[in-house]
Structure formats: structure tokens, C-alpha cells
């Protein structure tokens, strides 16, 4: 609290990002949130911004109307305040600067967040996901794979979990030798087992091979992985990095004049600590597997760019879509030049390659990048999602994230900038994974038990630091922080409101008919994820949501079924047995005959935040209560709360006869039908 200089500032204006609209209200600064309360009397809107969500605060130069303060959030909310007095603005600005740079984990919200839960519920929340049980579900340990205790004390690899699965023929010396030859000790371990073909998906980091070094233990390790699968004579080694060093990236990190005059290898030597591409790494004593040294491997580059390229790419994308009065052509050219969708496509393509190798060829695959915690996590988890229907359920998706991201040490703290750290470590790798999943849900609307809101909600909380799950960089750090004792689990919270995240079109039998998904990555089938990157820009969303509507109906169906049971019971008391058969689904063929059309997407709008998701639930509640009533609020109509100018009505009529500016205000329209 000592950082808060001014807890409350009145008469602050909030400017809309894309129009000339503004609302005025009061700004409150608390220990955890920045809160804007509209002063408008009826239905005053509140915006709650968690300090952890704030990515950057910028104080612009003083204008006649006040001092502008622009806040960019990690959940892609951008707010633009104008504070009347410069001093107030400065106070808020400097308080925020301090508040959003926590230096120790203990300062994070998760350690003070306290929902209405007792200790037992809290503990149960942490027990929801059990990775041991998950490996059992996959069929390991088995005759070829076993649990090893080499990393029990995080001695071999401190960024790996304690429990690791390796081929039974991989002895301890082999493991230890291999780990010494791998960057950060991240030796090859099992992450997914495809039971049907006994094929394994393994992950690791790059070998420290340089141009010629080799390691017999590492070679034996791969041999052991190969031997564990009788269906295939070889193992694929997927290096997810591009083969050629990316000089653009060097250009981004070094002044251009150096890049121009230096050869790539010199550039690389200038940047020893940075994550580079496979070739460049080779020059730095790291590199990739030499097919001559490893028997029975097939080596493959798949070309996903590194964290720096991804960071710049998303920044560019956000810059483009944040432009006011953006033209269609600038939008499309911006999408192109940002490269974001190209990168998304590269990740999905890599996952498809992995899936095909495993499910069609029955081969085991070893996936790595440089350190094996970014691109490797993306490809392994997305591949598993394509191969295994379990991961397409709500619970399964949580397990997948827990396994491939949290336990295998994706550096959430660094990538999501949880503590004040190195800005070059920050990268939207996990966001990109969520987007890839979203692209799949769009292509396979029946295959996923969850809807878009779950993805948005997970993204929200990866950055909120409100739950313990994503804090710190690896399991070892999490144990040191005693997160399971001191914080709450996000999964428990999400499951408790699971109704909101159900995909109404989810089909249980789809998994049987389509165990493996084969998505299209034709460029025209990959789309800009508006509901993520414009989550808070309401004016861009559809005004009515099909998803929300159908979810409400589904809930209403459940309640109506209950009501029918109760009514029938009451009728039976009067001695009357159920007169009519229960309404049944019309026969399938009849239904398909009726409707050949389809909506473009079932997901047409998303909740703005947790608060709104709850609000929606309430609205749903209301709708249920009055489903027989005639009065009903038509949501999303007459440009409520938005003011968009379609053209140039500005200018004067005659001369000064009429007001100088023709106003194009849209009022709020709520009507009853």
C-alpha cells in the first residue's frame, strides 16, 4: 500500500480506442486493481484492471483537456484515460510503475487472493490433476517404458519435473550422459504415448554437438527410444527451428550497421546468450543431431521461428489492429507483414507432421528446439491434441497444459513477465498455442468439449497471477514457493463454472469416428482471432452471440426437464400417469434434411472478462425465469454503447446556421419486444 500515492482521482475521462466517444468517471487505485467507475448514474460501468495485467503505462504530454495516460494490458485491453490535473496523473503513473514491477513472487496476487473456499476445498483443487494417472491412462509404465527416479531431487535437470518416463533399456548412466550432452540437461523423455501403435512422442533440448562433438550415451538414448517401438525401424527427430539462421532477428537485436558488415557467425558470437536458430546454435557449440552418428534416425527441420520473432510479430499485429480508422487493405497488409498467421500456420503444420508420423507411420518422434520449452511445448501439446480426443475435453485440456507446459518447464514467469525481468525473455508462445487450438475449434466445431471462452479465460489467468498454477518457471521453483499450500488452483475455479465453457455442438461420438483430427492449414482457413486480440473492443464484436444463446437454451432445457419431472410427479399424485411421451430428438436424417445451411462459426462473441462471464450467467438465469414471459431484452442492438461514425457528416450546413458539427451520437437502446 505504501506505493499508492493517490487512491482516488475524480473526473477522469476514458476515451474509446476506435471512436471519439468518451465517458467520465472516477479512478480508484487499490493494492491489486486499478478501477474506473463511470459517473453516469444509471447502469454505471466499471472497469477493473488487475495490476498484473498491465503491460505498460505511458504518460503522454499534457493537452488542453488534461493529462493522457495510456495503459496497455497483457490481455489486450488498451485504455486511454485523460486525467484533469497533471499532478494526479503523475501520482497514478508513478504508483502504477512501482506496483506493476513486482520483484518477488510473494508480491503476486495469488498469495493474497482469497476466494470463499475452505482449506479442504483449496487442497482438493490442487489434486484435480494427477499426471501420474495421466501417464497410466496412456498406458505407461508398460513393458517398454518406465518411470525413472533419476530426477527425484531435480539433480539431473532442474527444469524438468521429478517424475520422468524413459525407455526401460535406458540405464541411469545413459540418462546421465545424455543429459550432460543436452542444453540445460533436458534429455529425451516421454511426453505422450500413442498406445495403438506403441509409438512415443519424446521431448528434449538441443544436443551440445557443435560441428562435430558426439555423445555415445545420447546416441544410446535415442537407440533405446527407437527399440521401444517395434512398429518402426527409425525415430523421427524433429528440430522445430528453421534451418537457416534468421538474420532479421539479429537485425532486431543488433544495430543494423553491424548486421550489414558482419557475417552471420560473427553475429551469432556477439549474441551468445540469446536463443538462436539451429545453424547459428551449431556455431555456438550447440546444434542438432548428425544423422551419421545416430543410427536409425530421420532428421527433420520444421521451421518455427524463435521467441524474439514471435514477440515482434505479435507486437506488429497489435499495432496494426490498434490503428484507428484502419482501411481493409492496410489491415490485410498488416496481417501479412506482421507474419503472425504465418507463424500460427507453421506451428499447426509442425503438429500435423508429428501426428502423421505417429498415427500413420507408427514411428516414435523426438521433438526439440533450443531449450525444449517453447516450440517443443507447442508442437508436442498440439500434436497430442490432434491425436487424442481426451485432450479435447475440458479436463483433458487442463491435463495437457499441466503436462506439456507447466510440468515440463515452460518459463511462464519469464515469458509472461510475472516479475520485473528481462524484456527479451517475454514472448507470446503460450498465447500462440491457445490460438492454434482456437483455429482447430473453428475447423472442428464438434470435436471439442470446451468453447472459446475457456481459452480466453485461461489466457486471462496465465497473466493475472491470481492462481498459483502458472507462477514461476518450473516445478522446482513452484515447490520452493509452496504454491500448493499458499495459493489456489485455477483448474478448480474453471471446473466450478464449467457450464460457461461447454461447447453446445460437442459430440461425444465424434471422438470415435474422428480419433485423429486432420486440420487444413490452407492459408484461407486460418483466421484472425478477433475475440482474443479485440476482446475488450466491444464495437468490433457481433452484437448477438450464437454461442451465448445456445448455451442459455441448453441450460434452459436442463431446467425444463427437471420441471417436467416435478410436474409429472405432482400429476401422478392426482392419479394421472405421464400422458405424452417425452419430447425426443427428431430423427437425425430428418434434421439434416431440414438444414443444409451452417453458421460461419458457432462462436460469435466472447465475454469481456470474468465479471462479464458471471454477468452473462445472471442474464441466462433471468432468461430462464422469464422464458414464458413476453418481455425480453433484445441484446446487442442499436449500437448500444458505441459511437461509430460511418462517414463524413462533419462540416457545416450553409454557414453557421446549423451547429458546426453534425453529431452522430448513438444512444443506448434497450427496448422490449
Amino acid at each position, binding site marked *: 500500500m505504501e506505493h499508492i500515492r493517490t487512491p482516488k482521482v475524480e473526473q477522469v475521462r476514458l476515451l474509446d480506442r*476506435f471512436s471519439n466517444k468518451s465517458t467520465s468517471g472516477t479512478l480508484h487505485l487499490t493494492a491489486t486493481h486499478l478501477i474506473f467507475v463511470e459517473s453516469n448514474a444509471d447502469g454505471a460501468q466499471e472497469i477493473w484492471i488487475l495490476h498484473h495485467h498491465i503491460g505498460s503505462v505511458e504518460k503522454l504530454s499534457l493537452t488542453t483537456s488534461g493529462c493522457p495516460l495510456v495503459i496497455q494490458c497483457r490481455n489486450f485491453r488498451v485504455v486511454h484515460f485523460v486525467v484533469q490535473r497533471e499532478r494526479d496523473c503523475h501520482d497514478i503513473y508513478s504508483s502504477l510503475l512501482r506496483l506493476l514491477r513486482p520483484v518477488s513472487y510473494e508480491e503476486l496476487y495469488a498469495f493474497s487472493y482469497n476466494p470463499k473456499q475452505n482449506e479442504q476445498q483449496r487442497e482438493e483443487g490442487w489434486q484435480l490433476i494427477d499426471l501420474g494417472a495421466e501417464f497410466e491412462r496412456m498406458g505407461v509404465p508398460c513393458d517398454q517404458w518406465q518411470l525413472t527416479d533419476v530426477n527425484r531431487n531435480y539433480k539431473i535437470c532442474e527444469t524438468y519435473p521429478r517424475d520422468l518416463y524413459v525407455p526401460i533399456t535406458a540405464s541411469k548412466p545413459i540418462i546421465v550422459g545424455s543429459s550432460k550432452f543436452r542444453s540445460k540437461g533436458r534429455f529425451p523423455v516421454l511426453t505422450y504415448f500413442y498406445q495403438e501403435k506403441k509409438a512415443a512422442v519424446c521431448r528434449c533440448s538441443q544436443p551440445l554437438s557443435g560441428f562435430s562433438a558426439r555423445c555415445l550415451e545420447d546416441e544410446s538414448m535415442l537407440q533405446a527410444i527407437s527399440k521401444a517401438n517395434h512398429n518402426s525401424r527409425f525415430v523421427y527427430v524433429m528440430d522445430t527451428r528453421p534451418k537457416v539462421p534468421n538474420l532479421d532477428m539479429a537485425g532486431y537485436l543488433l544495430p543494423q550497421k553491424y548486421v550489414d558488415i558482419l557475417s552471420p557467425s560473427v553475429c551469432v558470437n556477439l549474441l551468445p546468450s540469446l536463443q538462436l536458430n539451429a545453424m547459428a546454435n551449431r556455431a555456438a557449440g550447440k546444434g542438432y543431431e548428425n544423422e551419421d552418428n545416430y543410427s536409425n534416425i530421420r532428421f527433420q527441420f520444421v521451421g518455427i521461428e524463435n521467441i524474439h520473432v514471435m514477440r515482434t510479430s505479435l507486437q506488429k499485429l497489435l499495432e496494426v489492429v490498434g490503428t484507428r480508422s484502419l*482501411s*481493409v487493405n*492496410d*489491415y*490485410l497488409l498488416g496481417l*501479412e507483414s506482421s*507474419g503472425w*498467421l*504465418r507463424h500460427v*500456420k507453421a506451428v499447426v503444420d509442425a503438429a500435423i507432421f508429428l501426428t502423421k508420423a505417429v498415427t500413420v507411420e507408427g514411428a516414435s518422434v523426438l521433438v526439440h528446439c533450443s531449450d525444449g520449452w517453447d516450440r517443443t511445448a507447442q508442437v508436442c501439446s498440439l500434436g497430442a491434441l490432434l491425436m487424442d480426443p481426451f485432450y479435447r475435453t475440458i479436463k483433458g485440456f487442463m491435463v495437457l497444459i499441466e503436462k506439456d507446459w507447466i510440468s515440463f518447464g515452460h518459463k511462464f514467469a519469464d515469458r509472461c513477465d510475472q516479475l520485473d525481468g528481462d524484456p527479451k525473455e517475454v514472448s507470446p508462445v503460450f498465447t500462440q498455442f491457445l490460438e492454434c487450438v482456437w483455429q482447430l475449434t473453428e*475447423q472442428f466445431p464438434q470435436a471439442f468439449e470446451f468453447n472459446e471462452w475457456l481459452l480466453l479465460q485461461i489466457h486471462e489467468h496465465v497473466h493475472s497471477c491470481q492462481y498459483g498454477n502458472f507462477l514461476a518457471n518450473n516445478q522446482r521453483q513452484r515447490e520452493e514457493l509452496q504454491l500448493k499450500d499458499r495459493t489456489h488452483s485455477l483448474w478448480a475455479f474453471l471446473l466450478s463454472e464449467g457450464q460457461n465453457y461447454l461447447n453446445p*455442438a460437442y*459430440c461425444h461420438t465424434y471422438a470415435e469416428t474422428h480419433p485423429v483430427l486432420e486440420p487444413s*492449414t*490452407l*492459408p*484461407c*482457413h486460418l483466421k484472425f482471432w*478477433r475475440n482474443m486480440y*479485440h476482446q475488450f473492443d466491444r*464495437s468490433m464484436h*457481433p*452484437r448477438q452471440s450464437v454461442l451465448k*444463446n445456445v448455451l442459455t*437454451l441448453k441450460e*434452459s*432445457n436442463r431446467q*425444463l426437464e427437471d*420441471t*417436467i419431472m416435478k*410436474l*409429472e410427479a*405432482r*400429476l401422478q399424485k392426482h392419479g394421472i400417469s405421464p400422458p*405424452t411421451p417425452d*419430447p425426443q430428438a427428431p430423427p437425425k436424417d430428418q*434434421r*439434416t434434411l431440414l*438444414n443444409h*445451411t*451452417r*453458421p*460461419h462459426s*458457432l462462436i460469435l462473441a466472447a465475454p469481456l472478462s470474468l465479471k462479464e462471464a458471471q454477468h452473462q450467467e445472471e442474464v441466462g438465469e433471468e432468461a430462464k425465469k422469464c*422464458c414464458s414471459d413476453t418481455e425480453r431484452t433484445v441484446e446487442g*442492438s*442499436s*449500437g448500444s454503447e458505441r459511437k*461509430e461514425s*460511418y*462517414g*463524413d*457528416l462533419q462540416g457545416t450546413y*450553409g454557414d453557421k446556421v446549423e451547429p458546426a458539427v453534425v453529431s*452522430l*451520437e*448513438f444512444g443506448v*437502446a434497450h*427496448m422490449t419486444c
Partner: protein
Amino acid sequence: MEFAELIKTPRVDGVVLRRPFLPTVEGTLCLTGHHLILSSRQDNTEELWLLHANIDAIEKRFVGSLGTIIVKCKDLRVIQLDIPGMEECLNIASSIEVLSTLDSVSLMYPLFYRPMFQVIEDGWKSFLPEDAFKDLESMTEEWRLSDVNKDYSVCSSYPPLVAVPKDVDDDTLRKAAAFRHGGRFPVLSYYHKKNGMVMMRSGQPLTGTNGRRCKEDEKLINATLRAGKRGYIIDTRTVSVAQQAKARGGGFESEANYPQWRRIHKAIERSSILQESLIKLVEACNDQSHSMDRWLSKLEASNWQTHVKEILTSACLAAQCIDREGASVLVHGTEGTDSTLQVTSLAQIILDPACRTIQGFQALVEREWLQAGHPFQQRCSQSAYSNSKPRCEAPVFLLFLDCVWQILRQFPCSFQFSQHFLVLLFEHTYASQFGTFMGNSASERSKLNLSQKTVSLWSWVNRPQEVERLSNPLYEANCLVIWPSVAPQSLLLWEGVFLRWKRSSRCLDEAYDEMVHIIQYNKELQNKVNNLRRQLAQLETEEAGEKED
């Protein structure tokens, strides 16, 4: 019959058909005067019946004596026919080429088509101007229906009956017509019940370089303004294009002569540019390349989405002037038969809930496109694949449908129809068994006596089973004005048309069916609950009655 002369080889056996999403079929290919038919003569395979009129272009390829014809359709589908025998293949190809480009209206299929369904309501009589005017009369007395154009002599592209201000006589109309492009004097397009404001449309005024004026024209449009009120003229051309039009005798309303009107210029491209845009877009969509950059830059270069945005923006502006500013609006471009109609019809979709119903949308198409003289035959004689030099072809109506789809996407519960209806209209404007979109104006259709000789599309659409198929299960009447977002991020590529043949929509269809099922089930459950409640209430009152006894 003369078709026989054009068909050199009416029948070929052993032809293999490949088409999107359906299994390859081998069978007999038959050519008739209007159809290309492929049948395997087996019950379990689908036959192909393709209207020659739907064929936009063909390509021939030969490998040895096996010929292949790639048929590119106006609905953007591409099918392949493998024909054994070089001579047969050449004959078939040349016949298709001739039959698909017949210019003679008297040979067109709708004149030969006999409906296989019972016509319940004759679509030719469903949307008569007299009936539409009755609705207007119930709201206002300021307008009258004039038959000044009863023999199409005042304006060849207008219908015989048009709505004009009550105080303006036919003589004034004739004089105003002489001052407007194509005789298209300002007529009523839409009356906004909420505030009595109106939208009118016309052709450009023929001011020429020396600034001609026409008192009658000024009187005509001023008659639509309330005392002390001003109106907006939305010119669908840029200022410079409008300026240039003066040199060719056209022009725009000057401030001096129309002091009560404020002119706003919006840039909607002319038809030739739109056609080029469609060709580029379809080319981009059919590109098999896996490069994201290439796709996005091609999509950008096509400018299609830009046109969608421009048209929607102009329509929103017109609607805004009427609803928010409380001002009347006159819309025109050059001829007043293309961009003008896009703007006036879309503005009505935004403003008028009635236009968002199945019947109301048909009435809108009838009123604002067919009666208003959009030259469908000229605009839709070729689609995106044709190699022949475009004459007057342009996807003006398709762009309108695309804009409607964009609004439908943003307000998925406010339309009684689904996108399927829009796709159906797209298909029938380019090739149809119905006479509705034949000809270029009401006068041409009446000369051809289409209402007697052909079946109307509306007769087909308004049968209960078809209405059900085209309905939107999520529809809930929404009496509000609906303002769409025109931000580029809110506008999407219309997959239902442009990517329709790229990927099977099966899993999306099934998901959609599931949603329909949830909605239907909800209705059934509600009915059941109501029945049970009624039954229970009845029982309880009876029992209460018994107790009293």
C-alpha cells in the same frame, strides 16, 4: 428444334466425373438443349444435372485419346469430366461452349421449364407495387402512386407505378425525368415510420458543364422535406468522378440550386472494377499455394473486402442520416441502377425489421432491385471464370448479398432467414430455371411476358418446406435498428460462397444441426411444460370444485 444442330454428340458412355466432396462417378454423359447430365444409371450415386447457363468457362486437356473437360461454373464450383475419345470430347466441349453462351433470350431455360412442384402462391403476384403502396398509405398521406410511366415512356428502367410526393403532378415528373440520367427522376425508396423521414433514389442530374438546372426537379425533391428541415444527398461517387461526369452531360446537385440539401460523396466503385475484383478474389481463393503471405496479399489486391466496407459504410451513413439525424435522403450515383440500389437496399435492412424476414427480404429484392431496374441480365451473364471480354458484367448484387451476410453475422438472431437464402439468391441470379432474374428491367420482363411464360423464384421459395429450409432457427424478431460494425476486423470473407467448394462443410453442418436440435428440443419441452401445467391447474380446480360440493 434448333438445339439439335448445336449438339454434335448427344451422348457419351464411360465418362468419369470428378467434383468437390463427392465420390468420383463413372457414367453416361448426355447433352440436352439446357442441361449437361451425367448418370451412372445406378440408384446409389447422385446424378449431375448442370444447367448450361451455369457454365462460365471450360478448359480442354488431352492425354493420348483421353480428353478432359474442366467445367467452371458461375456458382464458382469446378468439376472435371474425363471423356474417352478425342472427337467426342471436342464435340462435347464445343457444344457446351455454344450452349452456355446463347444470347437469344427466347432460348433461355426458364421459358422451357415446367415446375415439378405445385405452385401455391404465384410469386409473380406476391409483391405488387400496389400492395406495397397500401402499407405506405396506412402510415402517411404525403405520397401518391403515379402511373406516369405506365407505358415505360418516361423512364425505360422504371416500373409502371412509382411513389412520388402527393403535391407533385405528373407533368413535373416528366420534366424532372428529362433532367435525370436515364429518365430516372427521384422516387420514393423507403419511408421511415419512426420519424417520417424518407429515402429517395434517382439517376444523376444532367447539369452538364454549364450548370443546367431544372426547377421541376428542385420542386420534386424539396417537396419531400418538412418545413425548415434539410436533407442529405448521398452521391455514391467521389467528388472528382462526379465532376468528370459533367463533361459527359451528367453532374451533381449544386449548393446554389439545392440550398436545402447537403451533398456527401462516398466512393463506391463502378461495375467494371467490381468485376475485376471478383475475378481476383476467386483466383486467390482457388490458389493452392500454402503461403500465408501470398494469400493475404492476393486477398488484399482483390479489394473485395474494401468494396464490402465501402458499400456498408455508405448504407450506414444513409441510415444514420434518416434515423439519427432525422433528415431525408436522396441517393444516386451515375445511372442509379447499381451502387445506388446497394445503398438504398442495405439501409433498409439496417432500419426496417420487416426487411429481415424471408418475405420482407423478397419484397426488398423485388422493390429495390427488380422493379428499380438493376440490369440483372447484363450484370450476371458472366461470373469469375469467363475468358470472354466482359461487357457489362459486375457482381453488384453479389456484393449486396455479401454485405447482408456481414450484417447477418453480426446480428445472427435478428434475421428470419439463414445465409442459405443469400447463397440461393446468388445462384439464381447467375443461372436459374425461374424467370425472376431474366431481363434488365420491368419493361423488358413485361415485353417477354415472363409472368405468364415462366415460373417465379418466389413461387418456389415460399412453399412451406423451402421456407423451413431457409429459416434461421435463432430468429427472434428484433424491432430495433441494427448498426453493423464496419471495422476491417469485423468483416469476414464470405466462406459460404467463396470457399464453399474448398472444403466440405460436413462437420460444420453437423454442428449446426446439433444447435438446431437444441433449439427445437427447447420448444418441445416448453410446450410440454405448458401442457402439464394446464393439466395440473385443471385438475386442481376440479378437485377444489369437488371439495366445495
